[in-house]
């Protein structure tokens, strides 16, 4: 093991990183503006029915059967496997609907079809959820900003929240670009990304604060670089273990939390990147300096054990 850790000049490429982030952000916002988000049933309201076949199903046949039975304009897609079919209907809900669909599909089919789930969400509920989700995200950002400003300093909270907004926009942009269904579990994942990315950023900030107080005669840029290098090990390992479990969830967790796992995987990659290149970058561009952290509240204790 090396005696003295090498300091990597992360911030040397800060202009490049900033340009990269800006491009990603513009692409995301553009995609969100053009494609919008493909909201799932939770947010749009409507009716969706999942049926299970014994053999791989023929989607065209299913569509024909449905329109023959009077269910016009139904969206029919595979759900995870070729034996699972998800049907979305452009109409309201009646109690016997699931069974009606089953009868319609069973006509002509040899294999018996299983009704796996029926979901109906009233449009007003979906709308409320969208509003609440958006508000919740803003509220989470505000509280985080306040907390970081209290525990650290104002400039740090701008850095942290800037990184979070960056992450959220890019994850949303990713979902919009690839037309992945954005449902309630994905919203939960995006909020978890906020939590995760924040966790990462706080660890880096903690080290920056410590080094500003400890290191003498160095520039802010050097302090940031040293801190990032010292925490790099931890940043990569924690992101690594989290990625490992998320990959397990992505491949084995089933279709119902596929979106959730996807959002978190993207979020963790972006979050790890942003805690290095976005949060610290914002700090530097606001001319963070030793003086910003000076009123130390009995922080003398921290130096006691240093040999």
């Amino acid at each position, binding site marked *: 093991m090396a005696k003295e850790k090498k300091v990597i000049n992360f911030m040397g490429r800060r202009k490049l990183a900033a340009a990269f982030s800006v491009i990603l952000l513009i692409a995301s916002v553009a995609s969100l503006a053009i494609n919008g988000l493909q909201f799932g049933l939770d947010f749009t309201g409507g009716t969706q029915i*999942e049926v299970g076949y014994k053999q791989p199903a023929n989607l065209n046949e299913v569509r024909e059967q449905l329109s023959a039975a009077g269910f016009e304009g139904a969206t029919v897609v595979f759900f995870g496997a070729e034996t699972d079919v998800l049907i979305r209907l452009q109409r309201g809900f009646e109690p016997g609907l699931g069974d009606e669909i089953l009868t319609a599909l069973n006509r002509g089919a040899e294999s018996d079809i299983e009704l796996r789930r029926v979901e109906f969400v009233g449009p007003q509920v979906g709308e409320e959820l969208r509003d609440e989700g958006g508000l919740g995200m803003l509220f989470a950002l505000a509280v985080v900003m306040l907390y970081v400003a209290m525990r650290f300093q104002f400039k740090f909270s701008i850095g942290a929240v800037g990184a979070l907004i960056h992450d959220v926009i890019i994850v949303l942009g990713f979902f919009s670009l690839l037309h992945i269904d954005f449902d309630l579990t994905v919203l939960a994942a995006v909020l978890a990304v906020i939590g995760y990315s924040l966790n990462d950023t706080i660890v880096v900030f903690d080290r920056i604060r410590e080094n500003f107080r400890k290191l003498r005669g160095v520039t802010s840029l050097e302090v940031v670089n040293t801190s990032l290098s010292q925490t790099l090990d931890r940043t990569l390992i924690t992101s690594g273990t989290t990625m490992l479990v998320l990959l397990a969830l992505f491949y084995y967790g089933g279709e119902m939390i596929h979106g959730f796992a996807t959002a978190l995987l993207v979020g963790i990659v972006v979050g790890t990147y942003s805690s290095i290149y976005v949060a610290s970058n914002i700090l530097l561009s606001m001319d963070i300096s030793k003086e910003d952290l000076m009123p130390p509240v009995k922080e003398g204790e921290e130096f006691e054990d240093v040999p």
Partner: protein
Amino acid sequence: MLNRYPLWKYLLVLIVAALGVIYSAPNLYAPDPAVQISGNSGATVIDERTLAMATKALDDAGIQYFGEESNGKSALLRLKDTEQQLAAKEAIQRSLGYNYVVALNLAPTTPEWLRSFGAEPMKLGLDLAGGVHFLLEVDTKSAVAKRLESSVDEMKSKLRTAKIRYQSVTLSDDNVVTAAFKTAELRDNADAELRSEFPTLLRESKDEPGRFLISLTMSEQAINEIEDYAVSQNLTTLRNRVNELGVSEPIVQRQGSNRVVVELPGVQDTAEAKRIIGKTANLEFRLEAKPSELVTRKEAFPFRSEMDQRRWGDAFLEKKLIISGDHVANAQSSFDSQTSQPQVNITLDSSGGTKMHRATRSNVGRRMGVLFIEYKTQMDYKLNEAGEQVAVPTQIIEKKIISLATIQSALGVQFRITGLDNTAEASELALLLRAGALAAPMYFVEERTIGPSLGAENIAVGVKSVQIGLGLVLIFMLVYYRVFGLAANIALALNLFLLVACMSLLGATLTLPGIAGIVLTVGMAVDANVLIFSRIREELANGMPPQSAINAGYDRAFTTILDANLTTLIVAVILYAIGSGPVQGFAVTLSIGILTSMFTAIVGTRALINLIYGGRKNLEKLWI
């Protein structure tokens, strides 16, 4: 220096670990599929005889069972496999008849010694157990409007009794009652009268050319009280209905200001569940209008039964209502003891009884009609500005007469409706009367049905991803941090036990997103250890002796861990506050996971490391 914990800290870790294992253990025992028998009404006794009939029915049907038990109120029969559950239910139902409710159930198999600690397995959410989820919205606005309508009638009669002539008393759509008078003097008299009679209404006097007005509005507080009453009243009614279904562990909960969640785990017959819960009806008791009554004071309604409609055609009822369905406490069909004619016995609550008495004592010989009001939601699809199809819910209100009978004497808290054609009609009327006992109409805004096989599949994939995720992290930590990795792995396993134990103790419901939360916790719980260990490595690299490096690593990493975890906890709490059902499950798991992982990663690993390395005086090298 040496790294030693005082004895109590080791003991603390040991006790917490033991508790974690004990309280998470019940989740390892898979429940038995079972059928549960209960009575249709509280008075039905379920004894050995009932049980014997049920077991005989199963024997005849060739269905294997075991562990049958009864406690006087209900009985439970365990079955070998889930596929026979439905067949068993039908066989028992047929043999016992419809005075009993037979429901599918899952019987826990927690061993006696664990139950003696009060250890119970976690409840499974609908996405794991299968079942139905309903979200109903209570139309609180109409409850307020209805209250104001009856206030308008009362005001008119109060003003008439006080001999104050009014031009009009009207209710506008935005719930403002306006009373108009010819002179200011009349208006002021009326104002005094109304002040004493309707103290909860806010009054405001206005002068218009030619008329003098009082506008009355309900205070925000009064509106809230009415809405609150309506929702809690409906909640009670819903609970009773759900109990009629005989489902084990149903959830009937208020959500937000005007919604009610109903969750019925394991219910297969969703149509039946929806039929019983979805009786979103209301009742109104009104006097039949005299033929001489003014057109503005009466309304024509059709009969609900087609036969009656053909026989009599529409009937006129007074606009003023005596009471509405929320005053009906109970309605039962029975037979008249003397004539053996079918009848329906109705019990009202006390305020309903008073109103009924006041309205009927001077109207003996007239007929009273019972209106059954159904609220149905119809979805219309329209194009919005963006050209997308959007669903617009429209509410249709159907009001039909279910009974029109002559008042024989002044009625009170208890009275009966006779003159019914047959028993079927009587029980139908009793059912409708009970169903209409809602304070305000409700309609379905959300429904989710999860098939039992999908639930089982979700459990399987959830468990699999936890196992694989955990396995990968364990291997990685062991390879990367060696002895310290081993300590972290033991702490991680302990964390999993504690997380499950806490969730079981709190009675939290495990959902698929909840399992995702557990998986994520596994990945993130090692973070604290990674922070500590990389700090120790760093200090070692800086030339610190091993024992001091361990101490410094734990010390310096602590504030970082605290800050990082607290902020994540804040986000998790917000997630809980804004989320519903599945998202809340995720938030709960995440929050508990953060707290337990802080304990295991800091105190737990420190105890282990202290045991392994702490006592060695001339420690040269750490396996890290």
